């Protein structure tokens, strides 16, 4: 399954990658934004809209009856981050989304060159002034993965119950929790949103490796009911790895 390889590869790259070498002088970054605008208008506008509000001519069809509508870049609310809940994403987070796409919702734009992807990232940041003023606060994944032993998986299963993931994701983690079935889960745009079936990784949006999973638990998916568990896990962060080991063990994938 090349997709898993790809995502894992990216995770490694992201960890090792420093901020790109652009943005030195004012001139360079202005050019970068201008070039980014051209790319945006050709590749992104159709969904994200001319003014970045997520109201392009194709946006409606992506999510007419339920989530997820193309992102509104003017409100600074992002799902796929390596930063604490409520914080803006760092550039690498945005770059990763453009490169990998978002399963189900947005195709990968790996067809753009790496330089073009950084340019379009620079451009979408201009839709929200917060990117100039705020400094995103990164989360720490706290160590490296814990081997997925039977004991670890057992601990993860207990945590799954303790932390009440089931109310949304269901007892069997099939995305059919009582709150979800009651139709009470909405995203920040008021669209009905369904919690993922955690027994099938193919539809996950924020990556499918154990590291991705732990990051999702710490950051939460802002703008959706999927909360950040950072404060709940404070003091015993290693539990996040056990929980992730359990969830991944449910997948029928190899």
């Amino acid at each position, binding site marked *: *399954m*090349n*997709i898993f390889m*790809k995502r894992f590869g990216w995770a490694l790259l992201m960890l090792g990658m420093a901020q790109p070498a652009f943005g030195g002088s004012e001139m360079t970054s202005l050019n970068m934004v201008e070039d980014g605008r051209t*790319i945006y208008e*050709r*590749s992104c506008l*159709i*969904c994200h*809209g*001319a003014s970045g509000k*997520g*109201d*392009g*001519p*194709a*946006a*409606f*069809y*992506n*999510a*007419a*009856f*339920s989530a997820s509508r193309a992102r509104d870049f003017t409100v600074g609310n992002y799902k796929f981050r390596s930063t604490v809940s409520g914080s803006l994403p760092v550039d690498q987070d945005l770059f990763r989304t453009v490169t990998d*796409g978002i*399963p*189900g*919702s*947005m*195709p*990968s*734009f*790996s*067809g*753009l060159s790496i330089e073009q992807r950084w340019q379009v990232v620079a451009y979408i940041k201009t839709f929200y002034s917060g990117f100039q003023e705020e400094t995103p606060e990164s989360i720490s994944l706290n160590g490296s993965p814990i081997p997925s032993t039977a004991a670890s998986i057992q601990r993860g299963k207990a945590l799954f119950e303790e932390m009440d993931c089931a109310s949304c994701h269901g007892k069997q983690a099939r*995305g059919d929790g009582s709150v979800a079935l009651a139709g009470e889960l909405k995203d920040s745009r008021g669209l009905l949103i*369904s919690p993922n*079936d955690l*027994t*099938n990784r*193919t*539809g996950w949006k924020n990556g499918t490796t154990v590291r991705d999973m732990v990051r999702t638990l710490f950051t939460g998916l802002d703008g959706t009911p999927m909360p950040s568990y950072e404060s709940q896990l404070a003091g015993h962060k290693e539990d996040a790895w056990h929980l992730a080991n359990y969830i991944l063990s449910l997948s*029928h994938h190899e």
Partner: protein
Amino acid sequence: MAYGERFFQPCLKTALALAFVLFSTSLAGCISEAEAIPAFARKYEVNCHVCHTRQPRLNPFGEQFLENGYQMPGTEDGGIVAKLKYGDLTLDQVSNYLGVLFATTGIEHTELKREIEGSGDQTELGSPTILRLFTAGTITNNVGFFVETTTIFGRSSELELGRAFVTLNNLGGMNWGHLRVGRFDPSAYFSMARGRPQFVPIGPKLAPPFGAFSTPTVNRWSLTQSAYASKFYGLFNRSRTAIQPYDSTLFNSPEEVGIDIHGRPFGDWFLYQVGVLNGGNERAGDSNNSKDWYVMTRFDYAQSHDFSANLSGFAYFGNHNAKVSTNADVSRSRYGVGARMRYKWLDIYGAYTIDRVTDLPSGMESTFDSTATGVTVEAHAMVTDRLLLGTRYDHLDAGGLLATRKSATFVGVQAKYYLRSNMAFTVRDDFNVRNVEGGTSAARNLRNRFSVDLSIVF
């Protein structure tokens, strides 16, 4: 790896076997997912609505993807899979390239007027069943391809090659010109693309004779888009078989051999297309001494998130692309306008065309009407997240031999219920608006047709 190699050999049995393997794997894959992931959607891991309003209709993003030769808009690369070498192909990756359409008629009831010998009301169960395989994608940067085969079980049951072409994208600069070479549907970028109706074309029922320059008896009129129909009575193709007035032809032919180029050099609001074809509905080769050519322009308005519209016009210049029964060549040309409007789940589109026959043999002018027109208007709307209601109006003002020509007007209504986004039941009824008019022509004989169909794409 073995799959990859075999896949590129034109071996029918393997193709069919592969289809069934895919059928089972894809279906198994789909059931546990929120949304189905057929064909391109599989490759890019997105759901069908990223490109379609409802399959086969495209939304504005799907149109841009198509225009860019199966590459993401604004890119020169097919993305993820394009970089693979054929030798590396696994079944998984083949399924990213191969799509399958399966459609079967559960019940079909046809009410005929019983004036033509051998006809009468008919109820049929379980036929015909259509299996279409198509493979498309990109080979490398700015090179795309599309190949399809169709098998109609219960009719010929043979695997027939349909469209097959290569695209060379972004010639001269991003979106300046995209070239297609091979056998394609010229009208793919037109406001009312021939091949993307919610009302699928219903084939005719014919009775002999089928010989050269003979016109078979049509028991059941074929329900196709009248705007795109041939419209003339008494015309024949180069192999001397009758071109029926309802056959889709010229700019709106399902497959013509030729070359064309389209692009948007001035931005999203304007598209041009110019092409040259063998013409004459020839499946392969070129027995035509001369070529047909066409030009199309399209204007797009797509600003808001729930409204978009476009308007297009074309002129198709035929050159000795048909025959009359004396074996003399005539030329057919077509001029047309089309429009489409999408507002939320409402999708309305239509086309009006004027066809002209020129170069008639002297003496025939008094018995042959050389002008004909056709109009088709289709509208549909999603009324819930699973139910699509639609209607279509077709009017054909026929031309050709004055003694036999008959105009035809049909109205269709249909309800399509989606079990999943790639699987739908359709209940459809088409009726003849000219029921009360007498006569035994095919345009009158079909009174009503009702059917329940199932279609799956994966």
